[in-house]
């Protein structure tokens, strides 16, 4: 049996939407194959014909969720090429928005995980609270999605006392609710039972297949660009790298919840130690011919830019590798030996920026060659049906 998952060719969130062909034997997946490029927009080619400033807004539109990640990664590379150092306050605000974005992305993912596991009230609660983060981002930048807060040499918008107070007040609400979700997870055996053991990726496989981000850290590898290769002000901020060693979807959930809680601490630190001064410096129009590698820990994992300048107003080459592409090889490994019903959950667990699209799945019977199209919501129902009669583990421990 073969089946194919075309995911939203016009979905704005992904740079590389994915075609998946899965070979199954009964319920068990034997092989999986990828076909990318449905939404390949040729941004790398396009970037070569735009100026350094125009490219900030182009890179921002690679992703609709981690838009700030892409611009930060880009501008901090360009700042190195232009040999300028942004002022401290600018870097603090840049880091603040980055951490808010991480919270909003992880809360979004947590909701999706709840939804895919059939825990829809969890999904709605979490997404309600995600609105608080979105509101904070709106007060900072004026936008909910593309914040456009970065510029070469600093940030574009300053914070005032009232905004700092608003963020700190909202953070209190968020922290209280996140603690509540953490406890809810501990006492919700069906949720834990659904996630545990699904999408297994051993530590060795995670390393050899070059997985990134929470997927890698959930397999017990403490790799975090913020710690390994500190950019912006992460060398001044105290925080811990969150890992789990269960190597499954439960581990990935745990890592993300821990990271949310860690991000609240980082934001509090940033706001309480916000230095005074300017937020940006003037940048020259042309950098010297040079090259730079810029790395960034996006909510989904390591984001890397290779930027090469040739002394003109336009870049010679910009190479972008978004974290989701880094995780595809590992996803194929996770899918193998899994169940069809686990596909949405495993796939959602790498957080491929897909939250809302109705996704159609064509199932082809290998023996008869028959093909039928199954919408993703039917597949999700079968996923819930599968776990409906599963033995409930009472008092299971949430490994936080």
């Amino acid at each position, binding site marked *: 049996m073969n089946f194919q998952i075309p995911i939203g060719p016009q979905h704005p969130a992904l740079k*590389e939407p994915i075609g998946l062909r899965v070979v199954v034997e009964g319920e068990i997946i034997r092989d999986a194959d*990828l*076909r*990318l*490029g449905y939404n*390949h927009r*040729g941004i*790398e*080619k396009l970037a070569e014909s735009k100026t350094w400033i125009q490219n900030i807004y182009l890179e921002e539109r690679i992703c609709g969720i981690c838009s700030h990640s892409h611009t930060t990664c880009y501008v901090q590379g360009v700042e*190195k090429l232009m040999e300028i150092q942004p002022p401290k306050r600018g870097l603090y605000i840049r880091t603040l928005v980055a951490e808010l974005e991480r919270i909003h992305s992880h809360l979004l993912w947590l909701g999706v995980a709840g939804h895919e596991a059939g825990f829809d009230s969890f999904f709605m609660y979490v997404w309600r609270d995600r609105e608080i983060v979105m509101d904070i981002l709106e007060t900072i930048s004026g936008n909910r999605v593309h914040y456009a807060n970065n510029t070469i040499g600093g940030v574009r918008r300053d914070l005032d006392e009232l905004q700092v107070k608003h963020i700190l007040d909202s953070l209190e609400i968020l922290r209280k609710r996140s603690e509540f979700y953490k406890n809810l997870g501990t006492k919700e055996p069906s949720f834990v039972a659904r996630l545990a053991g699904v999408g297994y990726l051993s530590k060795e496989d995670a*390393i*050899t*297949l*070059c*997985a990134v981000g929470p997927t890698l850290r959930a397999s017990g590898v*403490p*790799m975090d660009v913020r*710690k*390994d*290769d500190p950019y912006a002000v992460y060398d001044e901020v105290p925080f811990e790298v969150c890992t789990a060693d269960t190597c499954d979807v439960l581990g990935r959930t745990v890592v993300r919840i821990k990271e949310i809680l860690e991000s609240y601490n980082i934001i509090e630190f940033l706001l309480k130690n916000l230095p005074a001064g300017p937020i940006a410096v003037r940048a020259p129009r042309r950098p010297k011919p*040079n090259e*730079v*590698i810029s*790395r960034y820990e996006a909510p989904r994992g*390591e984001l*890397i830019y*290779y930027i*090469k300048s040739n002394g003109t107003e336009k870049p*010679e*080459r910009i*190479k972008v*590798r978004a974290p989701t*592409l*880094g995780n*595809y*090889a*590992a996803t194929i490994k996770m899918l193998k030996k899994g169940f069809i019903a686990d596909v949405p959950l495993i796939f959602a667990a790498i957080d491929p920026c897909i939250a809302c699209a109705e996704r159609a799945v064509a199932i082809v019977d290998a023996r008869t060659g028959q093909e039928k199209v199954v919408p993703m919501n039917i597949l999700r129902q079968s996923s819930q049906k599968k776990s409906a009669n599963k033995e409930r583990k009472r008092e299971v421990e949430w490994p936080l």
Partner: protein
Amino acid sequence: MNDQILIEKAKESLKDKVLEITNPAPRRLFMKVAVGNLLEAVNWLKKEMGFSHLSTISGVDLGQSFEILYHFANNFCSFTLRTEISRENPLLPSICALIPGAILYERELQEMFGITVQNIPDPRPLLLPDNWPAGNYPLRKDWKYERPAEVIPGGKK
């Protein structure tokens, strides 16, 4: 492990195979090797230096040749291995046997630059549409996009 130690170790183990090694910024290393010594260098990086994470592979069109950059990373440093291949004969060995996670990046390289990666486990196209005309490699500098003329169905001939 700091950058200087890495540079010394590279010169010690790979000797004259290292064509150039630079350290333009803290935690950033660039090493150039000939394409024939690429696999040996990757093997050395992975087995002896612990760079098992390949971030990505970048290709750059230099006009007469292509430059290929392998961006490796570990917990201390980002190490870039670079090599150059000629435009007339763009052949590159696959590193998938050593780094299985490189497969998608090598497939991307094949399509975007028209480079033939030898011994690649899976040479199928990855990103471009199925009806993409052969011999068009978008990230080459001499490739220009031309929008096809718009045809209005039922319009004037």
